[in-house]
């Protein structure tokens, strides 16, 4: 599904990662800093030490109320006032996991207090009340393309005149349940991620992340000129080996980028097969575009990654410098992979892409408005 009609604008955007806000995160990536640290995968219950990037002061273990609530309240202060959740000013809350760690804690401890934040609906309702929003709040959740879907829905609402402006909030904070799940899938282990690098085995890291974007038809310095989502529905954790799923999504954005010079912010979690397919697909859709991935430093922030990394991409364009692909050693998977940071003043825009379990793909083209 490609949408390149009535482009809308990103009027405001921000994020928080273990490095801080978007500017601090961008600066850290330019330095090649890594937010990932070895953390016992099951928190206080131990287990293998795996690379996780937690917000400063946060524990992996669940608390009631969640200890990430303070981080969202802090992010809320960066969101412009706007009577969010009132008619014409909808909020789209997106993420993979919401407070799902609380359900595991409920199972382990029997403490019913954990249930209050456990499910997406109850979690979002509590957030809505805590952050002072009106009732027009929708939940969007589709694994690691959640943020892109939220952006697409917000864009359509604004484009169709159903919203004056729309707010997208995306967050994913780690817990033993989430880390344990990826560990059980054998893709989170003791190895640190090396996105877009050739190697014997791939590995991911996971990270805390939250971000917001205000989508507007009128104001804003950045235009979302094309957005595309596609689900290849191949296997739950594997893509078609010919990369056609990636092609179908990126082709939907490539048409809008034709004749323009772009750089490519990829998904790049550190898995081998998907990394190779993505690099090759980016080369086909956007010949000559340098490909960067930042999850080798930030970890994979799951459902929030599309919006967290949009905030960093905007900071990159604003500053004139794009951080290179952080993490690992070894030969890059393609000549288009940019390992070092580069000046982006000569580029017309950036394509941001994310991919998810179940073969979901999403991408958009961001240019100066």
């Amino acid at each position, binding site marked *: 599904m490609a949408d390149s009609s009535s482009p809308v604008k990103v009027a405001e955007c921000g994020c928080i990662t273990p490095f801080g806000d978007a500017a601090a995160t961008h600066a850290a990536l330019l330095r090649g800093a890594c937010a990932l640290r070895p953390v016992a995968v099951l928190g206080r219950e131990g287990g293998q030490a795996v690379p996780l990037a937690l917000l400063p002061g946060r524990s992996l273990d669940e608390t009631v109320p969640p200890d990430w609530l303070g981080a969202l309240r802090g992010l809320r202060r960066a969101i412009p006032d706007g009577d969010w959740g009132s008619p014409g000013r909808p909020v789209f809350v997106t993420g993979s996991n919401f407070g799902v760690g609380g359900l595991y804690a409920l199972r382990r401890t029997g403490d019913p207090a954990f249930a209050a934040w456990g499910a997406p609906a109850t979690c979002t309702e509590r957030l809505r009340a805590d952050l002072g929003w009106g009732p027009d709040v929708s939940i969007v959740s589709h694994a690691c393309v959640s943020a892109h879907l939220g952006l697409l829905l917000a864009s359509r609402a604004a484009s169709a005149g159903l919203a004056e402006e729309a707010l997208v909030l995306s967050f994913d904070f780690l817990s033993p349940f989430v880390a344990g799940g990826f560990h*059980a899938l*054998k893709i989170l282990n003791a190895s640190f991620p090396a996105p877009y690098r050739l190697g014997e*085995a791939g590995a991911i890291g996971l990270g805390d992340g939250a971000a917001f974007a205000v989508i507007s038809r009128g104001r804003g310095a950045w235009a979302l000129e094309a957005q595309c989502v596609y689900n290849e529905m191949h296997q*739950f954790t594997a893509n078609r080996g010919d990369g056609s799923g990636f092609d179908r999504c990126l082709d939907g954005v490539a048409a809008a980028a034709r004749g323009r010079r772009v750089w490519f912010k990829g998904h790049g979690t550190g898995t081998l097969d998907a990394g190779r397919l993505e690099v090759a697909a980016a080369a086909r859709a956007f010949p000559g575009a340098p490909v960067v991935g930042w999850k080798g430093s930030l970890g994979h922030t799951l459902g929030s990654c599309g919006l967290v990394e949009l905030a960093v991409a905007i900071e990159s364009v604003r500053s004139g410098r794009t951080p290179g692909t952080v993490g690992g050693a070894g030969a890059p998977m393609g000549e288009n992979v940019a390992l070092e940071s580069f000046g982006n003043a000569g580029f017309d825009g950036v394509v941001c892409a994310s991919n998810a379990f179940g073969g979901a793909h999403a991408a958009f083209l961001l240019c100066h408005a």
Partner: protein
Amino acid sequence: MADPLTERLKQLIVETLHLEGIAPADIPDDEPLVGGGLSLDSIDALELVVRLEKEFGIKIASSEEARRALASVKALAAYIRERSDPPRPGP
């Protein structure tokens, strides 16, 4: 003479993955387990890995290692022989 480990693995594959209409003897030694005639997918592979780890006391560290181990029943048997606990010496 059939290799007992290979026979056990075939039985375990059928049991673990609830392969209806397929007998252990129907699984060729050399056919790819994932992406081959059994139509196993990535989740099937994961389920199999968990079962193998429990049964043989091995630890498969990554999805790539799992793919190599599951290249075929023959490859899997060789993988397990290399990594499972060595037999205790006799008296």
